[in-house]
């Protein structure tokens, strides 16, 4: 690594707001002869929801796995808060505040909401020589944190199994916010939900954005991401084929790009 590379970009992004929280620059990833990602640039900003769309196999999950430290890119670099970073494991990414909520891995059904909320970061209190769970604090803090983003639960001691899919997503999102996450990555958060539940989850995402967190929303349903997104990045066969601010493009144009391929859409646009 050339040391000159380090924070060479930092001065340009000195002001808050314009400086991306996280950047991927010219990311490439190959698996044997298959190129999963080629030269993808992406910038994630605070207080913005970035929709990441594309068909199956477009490279969405490869890109996310690079951003969260599951894979290391073959080429290209990652920057977080202006600093060049390299992740040896997902733990490194989490330490910086990059949290992923997976659709079916978010919560453990047979445990209470509070036990889920604090899993892996349990508050403890000393009783004599013993370190015991602070059960009361777990319940109170969980209820408080959930109320804070507009999620009402009957009791944080209820099992997660009594909750709907949307409520489960909400609790996983609330957990990320509570533990100081800076970048929240949602992997298909709405794909298994009813219309009503989807709308609820979208309001929670909106709430997260208002708190100044950056959000990446991965989906192949454009109609879910368009209402909440500030930016939409389109991947196709491992390349970035579109990167639009929402006001630059309509949902119908986006649908065209994702379903018929960027080149064909561009060609037909030129012919008109």
């Amino acid at each position, binding site marked *: 690594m050339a040391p000159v590379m380090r924070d060479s970009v930092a001065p340009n992004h000195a002001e808050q707001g314009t400086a991306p929280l996280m950047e991927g620059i010219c990311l490439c990833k190959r698996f044997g002869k298959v190129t999963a990602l080629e030269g993808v640039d992406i910038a994630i900003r605070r207080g913005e929801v970035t929709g990441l769309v594309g068909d199956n196999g477009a490279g969405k999950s490869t890109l996310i796995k690079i951003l969260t430290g599951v894979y290391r890119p073959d080429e290209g670099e990652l920057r977080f808060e202006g600093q060049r970073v390299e992740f040896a494991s*997902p*733990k490194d990414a*989490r330490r910086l505040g990059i949290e*992923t909520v*997976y659709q079916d*891995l*978010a*919560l*453990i*059904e*047979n*445990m209470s909401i509070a*036990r889920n909320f*604090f*899993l*892996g*970061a*349990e508050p*403890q209190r000393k009783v004599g020589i*013993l*370190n*015991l*769970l602070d*059960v009361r604090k777990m319940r109170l803090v969980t209820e408080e944190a959930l109320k804070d983003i507009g999620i009402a639960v*009957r009791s944080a001691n*209820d099992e997660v*199994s*009594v909750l709907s899919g949307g409520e489960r997503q909400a609790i996983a999102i609330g957990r990320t916010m509570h533990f100081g996450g800076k970048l929240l990555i949602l992997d298909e958060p709405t794909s298994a939900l009813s219309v009503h539940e989807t709308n609820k989850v979208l309001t929670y995402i909106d709430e997260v954005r208002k708190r100044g967190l950056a959000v990446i929303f991965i989906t192949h349903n454009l109609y879910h991401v368009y209402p909440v997104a500030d930016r939409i990045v389109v991947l196709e066969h491992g390349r970035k084929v579109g990167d639009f601010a929402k006001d630059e493009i309509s949902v119908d144009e986006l649908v065209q790009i994702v379903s018929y391929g960027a080149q064909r859409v561009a060609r037909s646009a030129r012919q008109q």
Partner: protein
Amino acid sequence: MRIKALLGHREVGVAVALVVVYVVFMSMKKEFLSAGTLGDIVTVAAELGTVAVGVSFLMIAGEMDLSVGSNFALTGMLLAMFITRFSWNPHLAFVVVLACAAGIGALNGLVTLSARIPSFITTLGAMMFWRGVALYLTQGWPISVFADVPLLRWLGGAKVYHTFHISAVWWLIIGAVFWVTLQKTAYGNWVFATGGKRAAARALGVPDTRVKLVNFILAGVMAGLAGCLQLGRMGSMSPVWGQDLPLEAIAAAVVGGNSLTGGVGSILGAMLGAVTMASIRIGLVMVGAPAYWYMAFVGFIVVAAVALNVRLGEVISWHR
């Protein structure tokens, strides 16, 4: 509201089963409800229950141990051999045999976790292997300690009151420690999470593999300790004892609200399960029924109590 909260507990099924067992035997023989009988029951429950506590802790983490019966017999025999044939200091021997029991548990865990095979298979193999070793040690003969060894008296020989043996005290202490660990510590939270959904637990930084290994070791230690308690109470150990123990321990656990697939369970439930089974054993003797009925009766209770638990669970969630 109160009643519903009470019914929501996992121990309800086993509590009902225990009451039914008591009512049935009392109506046949009213001496069944006496301190003397209760002492006999708790004494039998202590040995089975010590195994059941370890097994249910492991089951909640999503694994199984079928080798606890062989571990029980082998550990008890080793303790007897070290004391009688090798004239070891009994306390040293006790520590060494518990370490052996832990080693058997650790081996179960290491093989299961590194070969990525179901613990049902690993411990089925271990059950046969260690039974074979136990049989080989004395060529199939039981081994007895005739001398008065204070350690053995302390483990199970002494009576604290009436027919109550001291082994029951150790069992209650062990049960309390496991209960607190499971319900009131961060480690207990990890145990539930590891058994409930391992990948999700791992994603949140829970050391799932280490949790499972530790619980395998604890199940081994508890099985070995139960063997020592029985040696203390009876003064002898046979290499063919404890063959039904794995299934009895699992039965006590599931009657008490543990799931075979992990993630849910109760230490108190497993302990009450052990008391229920011990009550059946003692009760059948008291009413003069052939001991063969024990297994039949237990089989009936297992199915009925689990069915009741599931039914109650449904009722509770409907009324939420």
